[in-house]
Each structure stands twice: as structure tokens, then as C-alpha cells.
């Protein structure tokens, strides 16, 4: 009870946003590693997809991810609304402070990029998970590679996907390092600098890694 109440304060809420966000980033890293198998060939990619779909843990894992996403979104939206109501009257003139401030286009657009990513996620799942079923030559194995190639051969979809990954990068550019701050890990100067750089690096690797796939498929497959 005490813990639940503490998690509903502004500090506890951001703790939850950070924790769920980092767990979702952990999912993205696994998802990226799996997807990159397509660069190694359709068989390997399809075998990976088959192993994933047929794993009995996949449904509980999906439910857990959905729960993480709901907590992340719910707490983040409440945080934004609370911030707005904490300043009912706007300044006539307001400028960015500059200097050591970490305020960036990424940090000021977290709510917008988050809403975009939710919309993207719905389209993404509809396109791939619930997309057309192609059977592969191996019985009972879905030919996901064919679906991926078919979709990314459409230049509009490929370009749109790359842009969406740019927005993933933007969200993570602030999100990852901000999560470390919310979890109270940036209490000393050396680690703060390391974690800020790590957050940037992770954002670039995840966004760049996912964006590589449509480019690769479009150009080489």
C-alpha cells in the first residue's frame, strides 16, 4: 500500500516511466537483433520467426509488453498534464536557458513522438504480425522474409519506416538518459557524462539498426 501510494507521486511516477521505458528499450534491442537476421538470409530469419511464434511464452511476453506500454503511456500522459496544470498562465516571452541545460528538440517533443510511436506501432503490428500469411517451402513455417521484402520494396513504405525510426531515435535520445536520471543513477559527474553518452549511443544504434533493414531490403534483396 505504501509502495503503491509512493508510486503515484510525481517522483514515483517518473520512476515508473523510466523503469518501463528501459524495459521497452530492452525489448527493442532483442527485436532488433532478431530482425537483423534478415541480412544473413531468408532461411535464418524465417527459422527465427518460427521459433518465436511457436514459443508458448510469446503470448505472456506480449501481454507483459502491453502492460509495460500502458503503464509507460499512462504515467507519461499524467506527467505532461500535471505539468501543464502547474502553469495555468503562460509567459509572454520564454526562452531556452542554454548552458548546461539538456533541453533539446527531443526532450520538448517527447509527448508528440510518443503519440506518433503508438500510431506507428499499431500500423507496424497490423502490417507484419497480422499481415498476409505466406507459407514457406518448409511445412508450417511462415515465410516472413517474403512479407518483409514485399513491403519494403514499396519505396513509400520503406521511406516512411526510415522516418519513423528517426522518431524512435528522437524519443530515445532524451528517454534513455532521462530514465537513468529518474532512477537516481546520475548522482556523480563521471557517471552522468557516461550515461548521457550511453543514452545517445543507444538511441543511434537502435534507430540506425532498424532503419538499416528497409534500406538493405530495398537496395539489395
Amino acid at each position, binding site marked *: 500500500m505504501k*509502495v503503491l501510494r*509512493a508510486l503515484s*507521486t510525481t517522483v*514515483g511516477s517518473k*520512476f515508473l516511466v523510466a523503469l518501463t521505458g528501459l524495459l521497452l528499450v530492452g525489448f527493442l534491442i532483442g527485436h532488433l537483433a532478431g530482425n537483423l537476421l534478415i541480412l544473413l538470409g531468408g532461411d535464418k530469419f524465417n527459422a527465427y520467426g518460427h521459433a518465436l511464434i511457436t514459443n508458448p511464452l510469446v503470448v505472456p511476453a506480449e501481454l507483459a509488453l502491453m502492460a509495460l506500454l500502458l503503464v509507460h503511456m499512462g504515467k507519461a500522459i499524467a506527467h505532461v498534464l500535471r505539468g501543464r496544470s502547474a502553469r495555468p*498562465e503562460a509567459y*509572454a*516571452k520564454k526562452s531556452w536557458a542554454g548552458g548546461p541545460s539538456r533541453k533539446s528538440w527531443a526532450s520538448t517533443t517527447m509527448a508528440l513522438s510518443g503519440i506518433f510511436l503508438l500510431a506507428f506501432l499499431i500500423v507496424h503490428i497490423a502490417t507484419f504480425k497480422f499481415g498476409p500469411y505466406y507459407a514457406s517451402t518448409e511445412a508450417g513455417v511462415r515465410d516472413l522474409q517474403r512479407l518483409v521484402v514485399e513491403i519494403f520494396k514499396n519505396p513509400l513504405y520503406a521511406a516512411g519506416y526510415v522516418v519513423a525510426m528517426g522518431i524512435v531515435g528522437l524519443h530515445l535520445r532524451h528517454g534513455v538518459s532521462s530514465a537513468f536520471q529518474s532512477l537516481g543513477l546520475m*548522482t556523480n559527474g563521471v557517471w552522468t557524462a557516461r550515461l548521457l553518452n550511453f543514452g545517445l549511443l543507444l538511441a543511434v544504434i537502435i534507430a540506425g539498426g532498424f532503419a538499416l533493414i528497409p534500406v538493405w531490403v530495398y537496395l539489395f534483396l
Partner: protein
Amino acid sequence: MKVFLKVWRQAGPDVTGRLVDYTADNVSPDMSFLEMLDSVNETLIAKGEEPIAFDSACREGICGTCGVMVDGRPHGPDPCTTVCQLHMRRYKDGDTIVIEPWRARAFPLIKDLVVDRSAFDRIIQAGGYTSVNTGGAQDANAILIPKTVADEAFESATCIGCGACVAACKNASAALFTSAKVTHLSLLPQGQVEAKTRVVAMVDAMDENGFGGCSNEGECEAVCPKGISLKNIATLNREYRRALLS
């Protein structure tokens, strides 16, 4: 020199305010920003008009009483400077300067540029203290504290509670102020006894008074006249996490 001002005028909390244009003539570059406002007020009084209300006390940057938004930045353009220590040599003839009060639900406006910052006092009342037994005075240095720790605690203790952090924050969050107090006390043995109850009580008080949450952007740190670091907010988060998980 001459500067043009756009100053927020509002006769009281329940009436609507607006930016009013003034011209400050004969401004000396050696004047402080508040002395420039004093001179404008003298001309207003001479004309029988209501002078611009603003807060100030020590005028040497140590008390935390002054504080207005100057061109959209708390305390004006210079880093680690209160508005009383901002000087008119920073400006040139013909400049236009916009002056507004801190804006936050937790800091209700009293008049013109004066806001009620007693919400900060209520946060302190909730836990910004250490309980000590009365009786004979303890021997000096009976509790030894490493110099590095004492220095770090002192850095946090330099917060003057002016409210610039709240004014700069897009969420009007009091996280930097509260965290400076929590950090200062949690670093020292005298404060560690009540560390867990303190951080919970002060965060509750912060929320009850209508401040927003922290988005970790660090605008507060950049505008703080005492250079209070964002490390303090990380320490607040860490202390809160510890209180939560024990």
C-alpha cells in the same frame, strides 16, 4: 542610455494583468537592474502613478528574495546571477526588455512582479530540518565529516530558495529546490537519521502544493543563480527509491 521596458502590471490576484510599456531614461551602465526599476518607479511616483511592485531585500545576491523573468529567462541573461546582481552594462541603448513575474500555480501572483512563494516554506516545514535533542551543547567536531562530503553538502545548501528553478521549468516543478534540501541533509550524519521519512514527506508536500513533475531537461540548473546541479535531483530520486524499497 535609454531602454524600453514591457512590464507585467496586475493590480491584484483576481484582476487581469497585461504588459505595459515604459521608457527608462538616463540609465547608467553601473546601475543594477533593480536600481533601474527603482528609477522608473521614482518617475511613476512623481507622475502620481502606481509604482511597479517587485521583491528585493539584500541586493547582493544572497537572500533569494528578488527574482523576475527578464526576456524569458529567470534572473536575466547571465549565468549564476540573481537579478539584483544583473547590471545595466549588460544592455545597450535602445534595447527592449520584457519583465514578467514567476508563473506557477504554486506561486500565486500577489501584485505586478510579486508572487507568493510560501509553498517553498511548506516544503521545508514538511521535512527540511533535523531533529536534535535539547540539552548541553555537543562538543565541536564530535561527529567527523569528510571534507569532500561537507563541501558537497554545502554546495546543495547554497540554494537561496528564489524560485527561479520553478519559473524556468516547463512543468513548474520544484524538484531542484526540494532536491537541494534533501541532498544537503541526507549527506550529513545528522540528517541521515530522518532521511527516509524526510524525502517522502517533502515530495508529498511538493505535490500537494501544485508543482509539476520533473522532465529531466535541466533548465532549472542552467538558470539557478547558485548553480545548484541536476545531480541533486538524481539524489532526490535515489533517496526516494531507497525509501520506497525499504
